[in-house]
Each structure stands twice: as structure tokens, then as C-alpha cells.
């Protein structure tokens, strides 16, 4: 596939949002503006990033968490204006770009080893947890 027309690239880059840098395997807290009827409020979704898709304005990332024993995944558009804040809590040691294998794992097996390359942030976050 050929790359998009320069005019489209300019249009896309004008809308891109800068988020703190994070990667697959990181545990993150996403503060997302949701609408309940007429009211709007911020909901916090905390979990592990199991997938990132690139592609300028069209990029998304998937966050997985286990709530009351049920796996929950949410896909967020990376440039969405509804993301109020994104906190990176820690980084996990991963060898894949897509962590779909976490879906098959339960309990202690579903944990990720802290990423040694990001020791500082990883250690502080483990203590917090």
C-alpha cells in the first residue's frame, strides 16, 4: 500500500495527541471521559497494555485487566480527546508485541516480570502495589 497523500499526512499530524511514552507490557492507568446519559465523568481504567497499533492518528492501544475474575479489555484510540490523562505505573518484561497469551492465563501465571531495563519506575510501582 502506498503511503497517504501529503495533504492527508498533514491533516493527521495536526490532530495527533502526545501521550507519555509507553509500550506493550506496561501497566497503565487511563483516565477516560465517559458519558452517562447527560452527565460526563472521568473513569479510570487500570491494566496491562497488550497491544498497540500504529498509523498516525488511527493508532489504538488495548488495555487488559481482570475485574472480579473476569478479563476485561478496552481499546482506546491513541489520539482520542477523551483521554484525560495516562499514567504509566510500571513496565513488564515481554518478548512479544501482542500479549494475547495473557488471555489464557489466570492468577499468578498472568503476571509479567518487571522489565529490568526500566528498573527505576518498575520497582517503585511494585512497592506501591
Amino acid at each position, binding site marked *: 500500500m502506498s503511503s497517504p497523500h501529503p*495533504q*492527508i499526512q498533514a491533516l493527521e499530524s495536526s*490532530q495527533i495527541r502526545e501521550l507519555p511514552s509507553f509500550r506493550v507490557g506496561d501497566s497503565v492507568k487511563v483516565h477516560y471521559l465517559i458519558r452517562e446519559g447527560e452527565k460526563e465523568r472521568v473513569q479510570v481504567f487500570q491494566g496491562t497494555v497488550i497491544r498497540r497499533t500504529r498509523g498516525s*492518528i488511527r493508532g489504538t492501544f488495548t488495555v487488559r485487566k481482570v475485574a472480579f475474575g473476569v478479563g476485561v479489555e478496552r481499546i482506546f484510540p491513541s489520539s482520542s480527546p477523551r483521554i484525560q490523562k495516562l499514567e504509566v505505573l510500571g513496565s513488564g518484561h515481554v518478548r512479544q508485541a501482542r500479549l494475547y497469551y495473557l488471555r489464557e492465563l489466570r492468577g499468578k501465571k498472568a503476571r509479567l516480570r518487571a522489565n529490568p531495563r526500566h528498573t527505576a519506575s518498575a520497582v517503585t510501582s511494585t512497592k506501591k502495589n
Partner: protein
Amino acid sequence: MSKNVGLIGRKLGSTQIFQEDGTVVPVTVLEMGPCTVVNRKTKERDGYTAISLGFGKANLKNTPKPEKGIYESLGVETPETVTEFRVESDTLEKFEIGQEVRVNDIFAEGITVDVTGTSKGRGFTGVMKRHNFHGAGTATHGTHEYKRHGGSIGMNMTPGRTLKGTKMPGQHGSKRTTTLNLKVAKILEDKNLLLIAGSVPGPNQGTITVRKAIKGRPPQA
């Protein structure tokens, strides 16, 4: 017949935009105009009323001299594409030869439009791709070498011929196609860009014309 005035442009490709409330809208980006009015057809002289718009810059090397002469005498640049738009006589009065028409002169964000283009050519295709036939329903029960066929194309002695218009394999695509009632998602006036929600006929770089919608109610604000 649509008597709505339109604009000529080029399809650049598609992407998505975020609305203020965060909703994602898939859009097709069109470079519209600026177009130049190159002709006016009047009731007295031509028997009907229309305006001709020119778009783009022609390759002068490949343009016939008589054609170049026309545009030289008008004092406008020789356009690559010229399209005639049938309009009511009162609309005609708003346009003068040589006048430049831009996106925001005709369109506004939120209105519905009809987009005409030449659909992507698919060549000679079978009935499954061309007419959405289902093909042979099964690959078993003794069926062999018969999977993507159309089945029967008619009856026996009565009428003893295949009816005209029966759907069969043939050229698919590369045909003038109009998509009705597409919504204008956004207009970037300074860049002459028109962003249409949804898809538009034809390949990227294809020439298209956009006019105000002929059918339907205007969308609720």
C-alpha cells in the same frame, strides 16, 4: 435531474478525524477546486441554462490549439477537466465567466452532498464478484468443476432465448457511479479540502464531482 451546483475535485484518500466530543468519524479527503467558470449556457442561446466549471491545470503540450485558444480568449488557465452543471436561471446569474469558485462558496459543514466518480475498474469478472451470486451451494453431492458459476440463465422452449438484461459475467467497475446523501464532515477552506464522512466512488487521485444532495431532508443540526 439535479439542478444543484457543484464542484470538481480529486480524491486524495481516506483517514479519520476526531470530533470535539471525541467521536471518531471515518472520512474521505477530497481536494475541491478552486474551479473557474469557463462557460455559461443561457436559455436564449443554448436552449437550457448551465455553467461549466474547469478544474486543474492541463498539460499544454497535449492540448489542441483550438482548445487553448478558447481559454486564452477568456483569460483563464487551460483546465484539465471541464464539467457542465445544469442550474436554474437564477443560479446562473450569480456566476460570471472567469470567476473562481471555492469549496466554501458552495458547501458548508454538516450538509449532505451527492458524490459522482468513476468506480474502481475490476476488469472482466465472474457473477459472484459482479452480481453477488452465491455460486454453487455445495462442493459435495456429486458437484465438481462447478463452484463459482451462475447456474441457469433461462427457461426451455418458452421463451426459447435468454432474456435481455440477465446477469452474467462481464466488465465490472470503471463506471460512472454516484453515492447519494453523504455528509460533509469538515471543510478546510485554506487548503481547499472537503472531508466527507464515509467512502466515495473511485480510486485515489480519481476525478470526482460533488453537488448538493438532490434527495432527502437536510440533516438535523
